[in-house]
């Protein structure tokens, strides 16, 4: 079983101390990427729910850079301590409450003297409290605060009882200043800041101030040196409070410099008599600010939001510099210990590594694209996922007018043996994007140009896409059908033909390729279907061979009914067209209606021939959903179920098919399902076409909008992963609505647990470059007083040197000349008096 397709941007990533690795939270695991190659090196597995925080233990001195320890927190209610160089789990703390965010202030503070006894390590965690006890206190249901900020003693592995810093309606992420002195959360229109006490004990009281604003604040950041806090709000404003907490926090610090606030007139822009000197507002972003970060020297402020533009503000002057057209909303900004490297996480599941002062994108770690948000009226188009069965690629539509090709096997490293040849593929496959229409990223609120359909030919060499430009108040809508061809080797698709308004202004319901020839059929809700033929096949004898293009070969319609689905049979001799509720069979060459078979109750949305057999599967949605199997020999229905089917997949040469069915929505069922299936809303059924009893079933999560496909397994790719036993001929791929996928053998008695060997370090030694001081002068020698003392010990003269001179390890011995004289001297009888 192979899983993959996880989100890389669910939580902020973290750099290792040497800035050569990036730790990314990917669902239940933490994946470790090399920053020089942007490839995955290894992963830490153990959590049973999505990981929300990863904190790398910082090195106290440059020599300790190679230390690789980190803390992770997860929604499964555990905090774990890892050595991520191996990777190995060292410690697990179970606090049984989902953790949304965690900070550990004492890691960031000045390193304590190592001789002292380690104080308790405290973490502050943002919890999602689901305990029943809370609801007793609060009578009205809406008032229940779900989020809680608590303190956790990591050394003793327990929550500190009774210390609850704040209760919020939703769990808020905690932010910490880079010195570890302050931590804060935003609560709607308020920003709460606590000062972390210098010496942490369990019962110490944290002092707190609250800053107010009139808009909902989304993000905030602390200045690394001065007491400045910046916050971004939902309207795109950035507020900068200078000198916060002068009154409240000052008394403990004692270095305020006597400038304690005298009167309120001196506080420009400050609201509600908050404890700050001044507040300034910058406004450039047009929508909410998601990213806010101070540079390590505190001179610059980075901000970003939905526009996909990283803005660098000069803190003193407010001057701006931009990194425009990143292409999707920014989510997180992370700095590394290496001052020339940082990363931004984007909403399209990409992490860009930036070269710092120049803001240049060095590498990109890109995951599978998320399913794009579609408007209501275009939701009926299915999942927009097409599988290339032979090479295990999946083509996904994305909301950046692109189609992404993702290799299902290569999401993870599969084998060591084949790495060399697979490496290139892996480097290729997640990166391959096809820009369907050349448009710039528009940070608008709604999607107006949508790639609605993607279809691949059986050999994967041809692709067709349908894009729809939505009309503005009835003007300027456009449907566009495009055919693409790929060069045989590198799967790079080039545009072959554009057809504007292929079915006038009607939307296209389905596109299917002919299994053997270069032909395709497109069907529209406008009531007709067209057979397209690639041109160069027709005119090969012509001397002036033109560049290949697709032309319309035939147009057909059935009683002017909307055509809702189309499919070719396995040998391409028959074309099945669903005209609303009727299935019609056509000869694609002569465009002649061959037969009309039965009616379903509601319009058919999917048609598929079952392999080479005489059976045809049809699925219809609507009020009376149906999954039905028809036989071609009798032209009648064979068997059917009342099931809402989301996807159907047929193996090419077998007489079985798989269907992804959703559970019905009626409330009674919902309750019973809710208890038994734990959030699973769909089921994958494997049928033999001749038999209405499913061969096997699996339940699935997030099945609505999911996709299914059989994959042909080449011997090279997976053979060696199965220890003993015969490798499966076909795998079934299931991709859920979040584009997480799983591949498994549908015919195995038990689900094979494929040996997934974690990849070893892909970083080669020469990439371990040095930076900063070390790059110029080399590593500083460790200055260690103790060793000097140790080495000095044997040479101290004593009364009985032979007892001491050979003590200690051999390399600590003084030079032989020195030893020899002392030794010989000790053997000689000493005359106490001078002989006269």
């Amino acid at each position, binding site marked *: 079983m192979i899983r993959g397709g996880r989100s890389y941007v669910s939580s902020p990533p973290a750099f290792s101390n040497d800035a050569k690795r990036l730790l990314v939270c990917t669902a239940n695991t933490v994946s470790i990427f090399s920053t020089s190659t942007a490839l995955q090196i290894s992963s830490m597995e153990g959590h049973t729910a999505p990981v929300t925080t990863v904190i790398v233990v910082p090195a106290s001195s440059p020599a300790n850079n190679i230390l690789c320890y980190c803390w992770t927190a997860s929604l499964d209610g555990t905090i774990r301590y890892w050595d991520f160089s191996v990777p190995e789990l060292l410690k697990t703390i179970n606090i049984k409450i989902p953790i949304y965010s965690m900070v550990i202030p004492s890691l960031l503070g000045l390193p304590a003297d190592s001789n002292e006894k380690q104080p308790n390590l405290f973490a502050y965690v943002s919890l999602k409290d689901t305990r029943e006890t809370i609801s007793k206190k609060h009578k009205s249901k809406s008032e229940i605060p779900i989020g809680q900020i608590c303190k956790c003693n990591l050394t003793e592995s327990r929550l500190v009882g009774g210390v609850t810093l704040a209760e919020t309606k939703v769990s808020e992420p905690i932010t910490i200043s880079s010195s570890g002195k302050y931590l804060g959360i935003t609560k709607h229109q308020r920003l709460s800041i606590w000062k972390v006490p210098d010496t942490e004990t369990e019962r110490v009281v944290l002092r707190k101030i609250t800053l107010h604003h009139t808009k909902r604040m989304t993000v905030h950041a602390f200045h690394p040196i001065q007491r400045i806090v910046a916050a971004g709000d939902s309207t795109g404003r950035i507020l900068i409070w200078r000198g916060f907490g002068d009154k409240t926090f000052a008394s403990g610090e004692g270095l305020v410099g006597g400038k304690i606030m005298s009167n309120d007139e001196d506080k420009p822009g400050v609201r509600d008599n908050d404890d700050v000197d001044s507040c300034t507002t910058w406004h450039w972003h047009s929508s909410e600010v998601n990213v806010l970060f101070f540079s390590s020297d505190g001179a610059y402020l980075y901000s970003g939001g939905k526009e996909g533009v990283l803005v660098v503000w000069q803190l003193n002057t407010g001057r701006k510099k931009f990194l425009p057209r990143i292409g999707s909303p920014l989510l997180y900004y992370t700095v590394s210990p290496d001052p020339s490297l940082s990363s931004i996480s984007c909403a399209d599941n990409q992490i860009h590594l930036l070269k710092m002062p120049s803001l240049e994108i060095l590498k990109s770690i890109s995951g599978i694209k998320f399913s794009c948000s579609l408007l209501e009226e275009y939701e009926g188009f299915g999942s927009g996922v097409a599988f290339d069965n032979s090479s295990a690629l999946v083509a996904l539509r994305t909301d950046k007018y692109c189609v992404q090709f993702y290799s299902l096997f290569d999401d993870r490293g599969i084998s060591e043996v084949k790495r060399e040849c697979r490496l290139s593929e892996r*480097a290729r496959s997640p*990166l391959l994007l096809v820009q369907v229409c050349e448009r*710039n990223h528009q940070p*608008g609120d709604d999607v107006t140009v949508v790639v609605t359909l993607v279809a691949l030919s059986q050999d994967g060499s041809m692709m067709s896409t349908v894009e729809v430009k939505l009309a*503005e*108040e009835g003007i*300027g*809508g456009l449907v566009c059908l495009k055919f693409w061809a790929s060069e045989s080797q590198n799967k790079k698709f080039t545009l072959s033909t554009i057809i504007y308004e292929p079915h006038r202004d009607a939307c296209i319901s389905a596109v299917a390729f002919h299994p053997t020839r270069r032909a395709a059929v497109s069907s529209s809700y406008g009531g007709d279907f067209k057979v397209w033929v690639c041109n160069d096949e027709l005119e090969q004898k012509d001397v002036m061979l033109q560049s290949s293009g697709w032309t319309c070969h035939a147009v057909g319609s059935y009683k002017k009914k909307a055509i809702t689905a189309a499919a070719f049979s396995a040998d391409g001799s028959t074309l099945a067209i669903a005209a609303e509720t009727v299935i019609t069979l056509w000869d694609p060459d002569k465009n002649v209606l061959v037969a009309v078979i039965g009616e379903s109750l509601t319009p058919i949305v999917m048609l598929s021939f079952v392999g080479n057999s005489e059976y045809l599967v049809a699925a219809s949605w609507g009020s009376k959903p149906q999954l039905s199997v028809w036989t071609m020999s009798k032209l009648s229905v064979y068997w059917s179920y009342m099931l809402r089917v989301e996807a159907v997949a047929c193996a090419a040469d077998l007489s079985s098919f798989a269907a992804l069915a959703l559970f019905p929505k009626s409330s009674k069922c919902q309750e019973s399902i809710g208890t038994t299936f734990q959030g699973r809303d769909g089921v994958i059924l494997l049928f033999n076409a001749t038999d209405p009893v499913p061969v096997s079933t699996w339940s699935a999560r997030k099945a609505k909008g999911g996709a299914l496909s059989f994959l042909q397994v080449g011997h090279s790719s997976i053979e060696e992963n199965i220890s003993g036993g015969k490798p499966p001929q076909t795998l079934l791929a299931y991709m859920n609505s979040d584009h997480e996928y799983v591949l498994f053998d549908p015919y195995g008695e038990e689900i094979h647990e494929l040996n997934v060997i974690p990849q070893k370090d892909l970083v080669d030694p020469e990439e371990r470059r040095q930076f900063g001081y070390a790059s110029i002068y080399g590593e500083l020698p460790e200055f260690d007083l103790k060793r000097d003392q140790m080495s000095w010990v044997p040479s101290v003269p004593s009364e009985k040197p032979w007892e001491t001179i050979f003590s200690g390890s051999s390399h600590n011995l003084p030079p032989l000349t020195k030893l020899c004289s002392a030794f010989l001297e000790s053997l000689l009888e000493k005359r106490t008096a001078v002989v006269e």
Partner: protein
Amino acid sequence: MAEDLQLQSYVGKSFPIKPKLKPKAKTLSQTPESKYWTSFKPHQIPNLVSSIQSLDFSPNPPHLFAAAHSTSLTLFSSKTFTQHSVINSFKDVVTCSSFRSDGSLLAASDVSGLVQVFDVKTRTPLRRLRSHARPVRFVKYPFLDKLHLVSGGDDGVVKYWDVAGESVLSNLLGHKDYVRCGDCSPVNSEVFVTGSYDHTVKLWDVRVENSKSVMEVNHGKPIEDVMFLPSGGLLATAGGNSVKIWDLIGGGKMVYSMENHNKTVTSICTGRVGKEGGDEAMQYRILSVALDGYMKVFNFGKMKVTHSMRFPAPLMSVEFSPDCMTRVVGSSNGIIFAGRTKKKENEEPVVGNFWSLGRVEENRKPTLRPSYYRYFQRGQSEKPKEWDYVVARPKKVKLGEHDKLLKKFRHKEALVSVLNGKNPENVVAVMEELVPRRKLLKCVSNLDNEELGLLLGFMQKYSTAPRYSGLLMGLMKKVLETRAEDIKSSDALKGHIRNLKRSIEEEIRIQQYLQEIQGIISPLLRIAGRGI
């Protein structure tokens, strides 16, 4: 690595907006040959008195040409098409003219039956040859013969003249009707042909004693023009709607009959195509003009019409200059449609000379030293060799003004700037780009009166064009709804609306006609289909 680059190129890349693609024609719209013929830059010489009976080029550079019209013969420069000189010493309508092979003398005939020989430079008549009783329609100097003339006229007699003595050497009898045309063999100075309204072309040889024709071919129609093809073995005749090619060596056999004209072919001449010394050596073509206003180019090697051009008047005469630079066509209403092409062949010999000189210089070329300015420029204009690995500089995306404005989200300015730009494709492309941004209607409502006038003017011009009407019709409705107040208050805008209304009405009328035609045709098609 390359994928990385590719990926990065998506980040920070900006695409200029592009108009919708147009479907490409399956066949090439222009063959190389028709490209050649259309490369003649058209030039009209208007205001000549009546139809251009004949045109003739001087064989000598700068290739003056003589146009016979009414009672005068005008010489034009073939480079600038300006009038060079006029010969007016005719009593009646001039019918034909011919330059002598050295270009210094010019013979011209007129309807009074007189043939005159002029000095081209002084324009004085040197000899008057009077023997024809009826109008003379054809006069010609034999090939490389400076002393004799051939003429033919409505009396049906072809005369061979001794020019110096102003005497007829032989009267060639045989034609039963008007002799209208003739040509002298390009290989022999004693052989010539004449064509007559008795449908025959006769080949004469003055060396034959009994003054009978050597050969005779029957065209089938009154012959308007006859011509030897450059080899001298083939003959082309024009009469009626057809041009026929005859093989003289093979005994007067018809080779091909070209019947592409709709009306009487009035004149033919030889033209040349292709480059000298190129892979395609000079090829000869027959240019024919007819009363239907078409000039056709006929490739008699492949027996195919390779180009066809339409002129707005019945055409009477055509001629192609010996240097292949100029083509002149005379029409019946006194206009000469001239055309001149730019040629590189003119420079080629010059370049050749330089090249030979250049080689000498190359040997003497001083070596570059750091004290020379050119030393620092050396190698800058070097072209990459075939095997060189070229590190290409990333192509800079060229952005138009509207693209730049769109990038800054200044939508209205972008629309106005593109409306000023006069390229309808770009205007529609910007509008199409504004639609997904949901800003088109906002732009429309923000336009001030002057800019609205611009938009309405554009609409009036293009809203009925089928390529744009899908978008523009809908937009126009919205514009009229939202800006009704402004339009009412401004007279200029009202004028635009009136024009718009007119063009819409016209379009509706056209559509009605088309529907009527469809109504007529579709039953016919149905019947035809049933018949099968």
